[in-house]
C-alpha cells in the first residue's frame, strides 16, 4: 500500500515537472496578441460562414461579430509587441523581426484592418449579399499584414 502511495506521489511529481518543462511559458504580451488574432478569426468565421451560405444569415449575430472585430482593431498594439519577442528571439511565435525594423509599415497594416472593419460594421446588418464583399475586403487587410510580417508555421 505504502509503496503504491509513494509511487503515485513520485509519478505525480514527474508528471508535473514534465508538463512544466514541455509547455514553454510564452511571455504575457505574446499570449495576449495571439489571443487577439484568434478573436478576429472566430468572429470573421461567423461572418464568413454566413457569406458562403454555410450558416443561415442572422443580422443580429452578424452585427455583433462585426462590432467585435472593430473593437479588437482599436487595441493599441505596441504593448503587445515588446522588443525581444520576434520569432528570431523565442519559440512559439510567428512574429517576424521585420515588425520591429519597420514599425510604421506594421502600424499602417493595423490601421488598414481598422478601416476595413468599420466598412464591414456599416453593412453587416443590411443583408447577406453585402457580407461577401465586405468580408473579402477585411480578409485583404489580414493577408496584407501576414504577407510581410508573419512567418510560416
Amino acid at each position, binding site marked *: 500500500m505504502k509503496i503504491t502511495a509513494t509511487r503515485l506521489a513520485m509519478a505525480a511529481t514527474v508528471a508535473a515537472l514534465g508538463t512544466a518543462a514541455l509547455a514553454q511559458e510564452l511571455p504575457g504580451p505574446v499570449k495576449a496578441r495571439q489571443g487577439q488574432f484568434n478573436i478576429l*478569426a*472566430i468572429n*470573421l*468565421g461567423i461572418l*464568413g460562414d454566413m457569406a*458562403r451560405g454555410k450558416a443561415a444569415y442572422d443580422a443580429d449575430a452578424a452585427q455583433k461579430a462585426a462590432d467585435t472585430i472593430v473593437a479588437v482593431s482599436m487595441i493599441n498594439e505596441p504593448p503587445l509587441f515588446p522588443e525581444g519577442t520576434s*520569432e*528570431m528571439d523565442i519559440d512559439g511565435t*510567428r512574429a517576424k523581426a521585420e515588425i520591429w525594423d519597420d514599425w510604421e509599415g506594421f502600424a499602417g497594416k493595423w490601421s488598414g484592418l481598422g478601416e476595413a472593419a468599420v466598412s464591414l460594421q456599416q453593412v453587416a446588418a443590411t443583408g447577406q449579399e453585402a457580407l461577401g464583399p465586405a*468580408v*473579402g475586403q477585411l*480578409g485583404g487587410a*489580414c*493577408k*496584407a499584414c*501576414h*504577407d510581410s510580417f*508573419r*512567418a*510560416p*508555421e
Partner: protein
Amino acid sequence: MRRLLGFLALVALLATGALWMISAPDPLPMGEFADDPGGDPARGQTVFTAAGCASCHHAPESEDKLVLAGGQRFPSDFGTFIAPNISSHPQQGIGAWSLHDFANALLRGVSPEGRHYYPAFPYTSYIRMEPQDVVDLWSFIRTLPASDTPSQPHEVGFPFSLRRGLGLWKQLYLDPAWIVPGAESDEMRRGRYLVEALAHCGECHTPRDAFGGLERDAWLAGAPAPDGKGRIPALTPDKLGWSAEDVAYYLETGFTPDYDSAGGHMVEVIANFAKLPPEDRAAVAAYVKALPDGGAMN
C-alpha cells in the same frame, strides 16, 4: 556541405570531358516557334496570371505588378537569385526577343545566347506548357510597359556560378512527363495542368534533394521554407484535412476553414487565383484532393 561536395564532384567530372558534351544546352529545334502566328493576348493574360510571372518579376516594393522590372531576391541553399527585368524594354528587358527566344527560355531554360538558366526560374514546370499558351503569353507580355531598370547579377558563389554545370542538373531533373499519371476527367486534367505546368505549386510545397531537385515521391508533401525558419505546409490529404470546397475558397479569399488568413509567398498565389475563373480553382482543388498520402508517386 553535402550539397557543395556533390556539386564539386559533378564539376570535377565535367572537367573530364564526356560530361562536358552532355551538359551542353539543348535548345528547341530552330524551326519550332520560328514564325509568330500572333496569339490571343486575352488568353495570354490568363496564362500569365495562373503562371505567376508577375509575382517574381515585378519590382520589390512596387504597387504596379505589371511593370516587370525585376529585382526581387530569392534566397536558396546555393546563393541568392535576383529576378531579371523581363519588361518590353529592348535593351534592359526582352523587348528585342523573338517568340523562339521566349519559348526556349520557358520550355528549355536556355537563353538566346545559348546559356542555361538557373531553375529558380521555374522552367522545370513551364516545360509542360501547351505551345498555344506560350504563343498567347508572348502576345500578352509584349503589351506590358517597358522599364529601363538594369537586371542585377545573382549572388551565387563558385562552383554554382558555373552555369554549364546546370546541364547535368537538367539531365536529372528537367522532365516534361506529368508527375501525377492518368488524370481521368477534364477537370482533373485542367487541375493537373494548372498545378504542374503553370502555377508551379511544387516549387514551394515539395521538398528538395541534395542537388536542389524536387523529390517527386514526396510530391506536395510540404517542405522547409527556403528563406530560413518555418515550413511550407503539405497539401496531401493525410496532412491537409480540407474539403475540395475549402481549398477552392482558400485560393479565392486566403481564408482557411477556421478563418485564419494566408501569409508569406502564398498571398501572391492567392491574388492570382482570385482573378481566375471559379472552374480553375475547383479544378486545382479536385487535383489536390486526389493526391496520394505523403505524395508518394510510383
